């Protein structure tokens, strides 16, 4: 079950697609939902993969920005994004009909160990984004899904409805206790892992949280996959800006990840610096 999480079938090669904005809505304070008409990417993207967005066309230089595909609906892809800096601010100003260009699908997504019948998804903040499609897909395959979701406060529990729709159980923690229990998502995650019911864990969120979850899974002897964020220039494996230290050496988050078998990660490596 261990090495296996790393053998991905060669996924569809990425394409460069010009995609019209279908919807760009504010779903919570500082969080937007961007829906792009991207039939090529939509057809091929696997849960946990990401796209590299050129958030502003035109004269001025801006690197692409990487975003997980949250869901696919028909030929459309949904992206949940948090407004942090220049790029995401520009994203928040996109209007229906604007056309932006997308490179994707990129990276390796989540993989289900053959024998697993009950999966735990641990989502911290926007870490819910890459888990949306995966929760749906697991449920479709008849895998039991439990979710531990955390956020600063209730409104920020993005994708909560999706999880509640497809999951057997959703346990919530918020920093201010405005929904679920007060505290971190590691609380419910720990209980669910210790319960002995879940057979595999998929985690995304702040790197420290992922590390904590990985440790819990390891202690419980169950496999765990995590989705790591790194600053990315090319997104296609060429520039080496996105390296992750693993027991197998330096790996590129964009092509060897972003989803990794947690047991291979050397957690001392530095993640994306925290945002103000």
């Amino acid at each position, binding site marked *: 079950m261990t090495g296996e999480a790393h053998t991905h079938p060669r996924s569809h090669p990425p394409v*460069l697609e010009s995609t019209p904005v279908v919807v760009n809505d504010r779903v919570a304070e500082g969080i937007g939902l961007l829906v792009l008409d991207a039939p090529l990417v939509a057809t091929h993207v696997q849960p946990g993969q990401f796209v590299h967005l050129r958030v502003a066309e035109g004269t001025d230089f801006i690197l*692409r920005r990487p975003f997980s595909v949250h869901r696919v609906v028909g030929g459309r892809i949904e992206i949940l994004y948090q407004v942090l800096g220049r790029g995401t601010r520009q994203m928040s100003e996109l209007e229906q009909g604007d056309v932006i260009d997308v490179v994707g699908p990129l990276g390796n997504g989540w993989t289900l160990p053959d024998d697993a019948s009950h999966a735990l998804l641990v989502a911290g903040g926007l870490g819910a984004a890459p888990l949306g499609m995966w929760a749906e897909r697991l449920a479709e395959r008849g895998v039991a899904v439990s979710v531990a979701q955390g956020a600063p406060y209730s409104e920020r529990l993005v994708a909560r409805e999706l999880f509640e729709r497809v999951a057997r159980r959703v346990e919530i923690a918020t920093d201010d206790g405005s929904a679920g229990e007060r505290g971190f998502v590691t609380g419910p995650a720990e209980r669910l892992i210790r319960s002995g019911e879940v057979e595999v864990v998929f985690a995304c969120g702040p790197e420290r949280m992922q590390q904590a979850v990985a440790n819990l899974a390891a202690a419980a002897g169950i496999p765990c996959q995590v989705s790591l964020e*790194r600053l990315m*220039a*090319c997104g296609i494996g060429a520039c*080496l800006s996105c390296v992750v230290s693993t027991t197998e050496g330096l790996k590129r988050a964009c092509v060897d990840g972003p989803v990794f078998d947690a047991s291979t990660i050397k957690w001392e*490596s*530095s993640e994306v*610096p925290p945002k103000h």
Partner: protein
Amino acid sequence: MNAADQRPSPDMRVRLGTLELRNPVMTASGTFGSGREFSDFVDLERLGAVVTKGVSMEPWPGNDSPRIAETASGMLNSIGLQNPGVERFVERDLAWLRTLDVPVVVNVSGHSTGEYARVIERIEQAGGADAYEVNISCPNVDAGGMVFGTACGPASEVTRSCRAATQRPLIVKLSPNVTDVVEIAKAVASEGADAVALINTLLGMAIDAESRRPKLARVVGGLSGPAIKPIALRMVWQVAAALDIPVVGMGGITTAEDAVEFMLAGASGVAIGTANFVDPTTTLRVIDGLTTWCRERDVARVADLIGALET
């Protein structure tokens, strides 16, 4: 403009010493992997040349993360020449590139004068590359790199020992972090460099005010992208005016017009670096744009643009 399409195709070939390119557009080392990474987007056989990521004798781990930071019209990187070493490069990357019909320029790094030459010798044993680009200008490694490229003595020495290691075209890649780039260019030319490439990145830094920390783990890194184009153009112009050997120009090129500007300043070839990250098809866009540009203006040979600036 429709009339333009009827006009004959311009001759897009250029020469870098004995190396003939089907067009002037190359990739800038370190921004295009070994080429394979871009092959989903770019038909590599249409490029003037593929210039590989820097390769050293032994594997190099590169620097800590974060390794990049976006800046105004540019970016900083402190990748630090991470590479798997020449053995693995020869087996995996060079072997694959050799199956393609495109000139391959191997970018060579070293911690010491001797290491550069040994890398070249190893590749020569394996059948050789079409040319070597000797990187004496990486600002991202402590030993080696820029230290060889900012003074004439070490620059000459590295060139001399690489020259002894191969008969093939030798391109020396210069650092812009110097008082007088012409002096260094002359030094390497007199040691037998067939061409010079410029510019490598400018040493820069970015700070996150909130956390009071540098944005790069290594603190400083190399600045690239459109921000540096004016400096690159100036250096290409100075060096091309002072030297007889061809110049490969780079620094912020994103459009065919940028490429024309570098050629007018004296570049025989141009390389696309950071722009590959923003649009993975930049190289092809520049080739097509350059062809159209020449055709529309009745420039019969793209080589006619080289050094054609009217001052």
